[in-house]
């Protein structure tokens, strides 16, 4: 049973930092939508997208850096 739960969890979360970063950014943008409903949705949509991209790129750069350190 635990193996099955772990396998299903693994479908969505491979790198914990990436998952936490994406969820935290979603929560922040969700908060912004509630606090500033008059702000252009295009601005918040762009912020949501660019934030996700930055989190992804930052994560792969950190992984590549860790890989480079291991090779030295």
């Amino acid at each position, binding site marked *: 049973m635990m193996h099955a739960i772990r396998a299903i969890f693994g479908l969505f*979360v*491979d*790198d914990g930092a990436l998952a936490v970063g994406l969820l935290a950014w*979603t929560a922040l943008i969700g908060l912004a939508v509630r606090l500033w409903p008059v702000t252009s949705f295009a601005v918040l949509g762009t912020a*949501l*997208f660019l934030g996700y991209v930055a989190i*992804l*790129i930052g994560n*792969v750069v950190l992984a590549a850096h860790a890989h480079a*350190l291991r090779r030295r």
Partner: protein
Amino acid sequence: MTWLQAAPTITAAFLASFVEFVEAATIVLAVGTVRGWRSALGGTAIAVLVLFAMVLVLGPALTHVPQQAMQLVVGLLLLLFGMRWLRKAILRGAGIIALHDEDAIFRSETDSLRRAGAMAGRGLDLVAAATAFKAVLLEGTEVAFIVIGIGASGAGLLLPAAVGAAAAALLVLAIAAAVHRPLARVPENTVKFVVGVLITAFGVNWTGEGLGIAWPGRDLALLALASGLLAAALLGVRVAESVGSRGATRPAVR
């Protein structure tokens, strides 16, 4: 429903399901080759029945969830799922982690199945059936999630998503039955790269709508998000390649 809505859904469901079916087929082929086809196909059939039951129970339950809440939950799950694939595809493209090798998986699986003890006589070989069952259930769960996830948030999109997945299943079954070997020539990392981009685009789109963000251009926004993600992912490969190769050029630190 227009082709503009259906085409990305069919493409994403087809490609994502294709990769999952290839992975499941590799294990089933390994089981069938080493321990016999009866147990391999028996385990596969039981897993397919369990998957059908899961979809029959969970599918109608989803219709009772308010649309905005479902968009947010499904969007976040698609986002996490797609980003996980995209991250791995970028790191594989940059040479940071090894490429997925169906031949190596086939060899490793056949070795471990040969070591797993004697086969049962005329009855079902439990080791073989359980191995096939586990592989098909896990990969099938991913396919079911992809179909429901991609199809759930748009009116009438479940059918195109199911059609894409069914086409992938038929294609993999036909190839596997014809060649009886793992589908090692499939450019799996390239497919995973594309699928990661498409599923993440769906995830961003649904998550935004779930948060109350009305995307400008509606359906065109999905294509814009996918294009932006593709550009960012290609940039990610270049940057990761450059950062990762620094370890090879500098002398070892003592």
